[in-house]
């Protein structure tokens, strides 16, 4: 009890000391003034695919300029599939921007403002801070366009610095923990900056929870910066893959009754993956990758380990230290490039359908044994595809006997068909885990 009271005094004393130096209101103004000029109201015209065809929609998001030459960081879910991006700067000038690159796994995208459209070439930019030194309770401001209301500022504290979400639903974040804040974040804040009182960007606001109050989540800026740098180097963020799923070891450690036990539990080894070929199996405990000790007592440590694996070299083997049945051994695994890349959907208008590269979810649901195929995301009513009884969720494995490896293959075969356009097309599908056959007959334009 005494300790708690002392802590309270310390906090209050600290706050008093701070307020004596600079009035709190003034600190907020200073922070605001440093970032607000670099805030961007982003309005992409995005391609959306519903009911078997491509459609357009305008969405609203936020972004922040982080370099003097006009690069903007925002969310993948704001800028993905953008046909055109409109940006309104704090000066209220409205210009276009192009998407430099976008990474679905971390929900980060980078835009480049078409600065030649600007009258004033002096482009304000915000300073990126360090998200590793954040503290729970620290005061933060969220800047952006909630529900399209541009240049809005809200305030709150950091509620948690290590919020973990299992990779489920839309809240995928296999490689990072989230900053949770009670600063009001609404749809439209996405991609906008979360800043500290020094006026540094410490996170990219990405998610709010519906039907909840003051539950906002931001991507730590250190990860956003790293991904943005990779995007600026090339166009796609490439990740390495060995084919394992991992789980924290808290329960295992208690089960084994070994107080000093460390590592991470391997729960899933994908068939034919590098890890499977190296003999790893569910139940093994991974203790070291190369020279790096790995330890995940709690799930909050899992993203870090996934990140290490995703950064493994592709041109050489890495030593993995594995614990199994009280014995340790080292196996060499050569990582490969991650299969099942999330690429934009593709419309096949003549067939009345939209397809996408396989996702892990579809791969598992349809019990596929290799990564060949694309899946149908929707079928257009009244189209040739509907007449052929194609359905959303079907995996297209072969077209006229030719294996469809992925989106590019599908596109090639589809275009080939458009050139010849003489005979029906025979599709070999996977539906509900087993084969299904369909013939698409060309139909007159509808």
């Amino acid at each position: 009890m005494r300790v708690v009271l002392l802590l309270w005094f310390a906090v209050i004393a600290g706050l008093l000391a701070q307020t004596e130096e600079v009035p709190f209101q003034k600190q907020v103004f200073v922070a605001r003034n440093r970032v607000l000029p670099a805030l961007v109201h982003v309005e992409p015209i995005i391609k959306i695919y519903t009911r078997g065809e491509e459609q357009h929609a305008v969405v609203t998001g936020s972004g922040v300029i982080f370099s003097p030459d006009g690069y903007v960081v925002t969310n993948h879910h704001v800028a993905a599939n953008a046909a055109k991006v409109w940006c309104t700067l704090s000066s209220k000038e409205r210009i276009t921007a192009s998407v430099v690159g976008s990474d679905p796994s971390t929900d980060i995208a980078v835009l480049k403002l078409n600065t030649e459209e600007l009258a004033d070439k002096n482009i304000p930019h915000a300073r990126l801070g360090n998200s590793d030194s954040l503290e729970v309770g620290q005061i933060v401001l969220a800047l952006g366009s909630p529900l399209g209301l541009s240049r809005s500022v809200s305030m709150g504290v950091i509620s948690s610095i290590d919020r973990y979400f299992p990779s489920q639903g839309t809240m995928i974040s296999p490689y990072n923990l989230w900053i949770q804040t009670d600063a009001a974040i609404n749809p439209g804040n996405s991609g906008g900056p979360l800043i500290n009182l020094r006026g540094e960007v410490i996170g990219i606001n990405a998610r709010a929870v519906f039907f909840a109050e003051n539950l906002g989540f931001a991507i730590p800026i250190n990860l956003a910066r790293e991904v943005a740098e990779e995007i600026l180097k090339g166009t796609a963020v490439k990740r390495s893959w060995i084919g394992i799923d991992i789980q924290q070891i808290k329960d295992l450690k208690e089960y084994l009754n070994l107080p000093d036990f460390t590592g991470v539990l391997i729960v899933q080894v994908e068939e034919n993956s590098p890890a499977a070929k190296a003999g790893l199996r569910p139940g093994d405990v991974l203790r070291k990758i190369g020279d790096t000790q790995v330890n995940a007592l709690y799930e909050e440590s899992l993203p870090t380990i996934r990140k290490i694996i995703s950064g493994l070299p592709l041109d050489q083997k890495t030593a993995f230290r594995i614990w199994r049945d009280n014995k340790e051994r080292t196996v060499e695994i050569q990582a490969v490039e991650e299969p099942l890349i999330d690429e934009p959907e593709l419309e096949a208008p003549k067939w009345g359908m939209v397809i996408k590269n396989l996702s892990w979810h579809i791969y598992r649901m349809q019990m596929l044994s290799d990564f060949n195929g694309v899946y149908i995301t929707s079928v257009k009513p009244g189209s040739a595809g509907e007449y052929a009884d194609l359905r959303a969720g079907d995996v297209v494995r072969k077209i006229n006997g030719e294996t469809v490896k992925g989106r590019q293959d599908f596109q090639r075969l589809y275009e080939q068909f458009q050139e010849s356009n003489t005979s029906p097309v025979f599709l070999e599908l996977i539906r509900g885990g087993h084969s299904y056959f369909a013939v698409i007959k060309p139909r007159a334009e509808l």
Partner: protein
Amino acid sequence: MKRNLLLVIFLILAVMAPGVCQPSRALFQEFRPKICLVQYYKNVSSQSQIGSYFKVKQYRIGVIVAPDGLVMVNSDVYPLSLDIISGEGASFSFGEPSDFKVKLFDEKEYEAEFIGKDDQVQAAFLKITAPLPAPLPYVDFASGEEIEVGQPVYLLELLQERYNFEPLFTPYTINAVIPTPRRKLLINAENYALSAGGLLITAAGEAVGVTLRSSMDFSFRPPSEFEEFHKEYLEIAPSEWFRDLIKNPPMLGKAEYQGKAWLGIGMQALTPELRDYWQTPSEGGIVVNRVYPASPAEKAGLKVQDVILTFDYQPVDIKRNEDLNRFKEMITAKAPGASVELTLFREGKTRKQKVKLDAAPRAIDLAEKIQLSELGVEVRELTRDILYDYNLPLDTEGVYVYQVDHASPAGLGGLEVGGIIIRVDGQAVQDLQSFAAMIKRANEGNPRKIMLQVQQRRETQFVFVDVK
């Protein structure tokens, strides 16, 4: 004098209403004692205590079909699936129904037991177990094959509890005949009486059918495709559906139970488009899109993409997936063990292939089970429906998690229904007995946690169950 007057009145009445009032009244009186009220308890699994069930009282109309107390009711009294081709998959939420009682016309009530059912024709059979003072009046079904649209009929049903289950007798006209996949009759009326099982009687006094439970359409359609507002009709199974079953009722008992005839393929219709593409010699057929391991089809060498053109010398004229049930009926009409000849179309050539059908393997609902209420789990022996569903090899060993109590050690550890426990504390689980022994042993020591390795489809999970 008074008596004479009565006689005159009677005669006048008899002349005024020849063959209208009197016969229908007579029909009602003839059939009234041949139907009965069936009462039982549906047992709904409790999610919070393994091995415990909520009892829900249910009533049905029954038709007495033999003098020794054989009663036919709708098959929904027994919600568990029997084999891998009947029923609707694992039920999970129901135990076996219990406490069957049959109440006769004379208000006498007798205990009865469930003896078997056939889901394809929605018929289940009960047998009165208490001794009967005399043989019961029973319905001897005549053929319903000749019933046609426009024919006047009577329906004998029972009202709901608030009307004291009194009989409801209504004249109707057959309004439609639905020919496929199995011929049934439709009456343009609502179903107000006690659910399915009512008796259809012709004006000539022959019982020719029973009402079915209203069919529900769960098929997904985009909103633009709704054809009409969903109206329900009274559906009637003509007696052909079940007449043979009455003579030889299905038995559920472990020794007697036999699945229906089974081929063991996944199928789709040979649509005109597929036919044009493959250039098959005849229109219509069954495209094999899956061959189940160790099934009659696999043993006979059937392959994915084979097209079945004839079955037992009958053409398979199926061009739409909506009609696939017709092929299933062709198979189940055969006896398990029967040999049939198929005409197959494979890679441009036609060939004959003999197949020896087999009884369909049992469903998980009928599998042996162990309920461990302290651990909070009901596990069952692995049945082939699960292995087929998960695409796992048939020699997979383990036990199937059929029920989990969420507030139990197993539930808190994250165990979920649908998993297959393949290892306990690192040791392979062979079957139910070995699993029970392993859990017992683990509990005997000084246990803190039990480690379960669980597989579902191709995903593995480790569940740590705290048994402190």
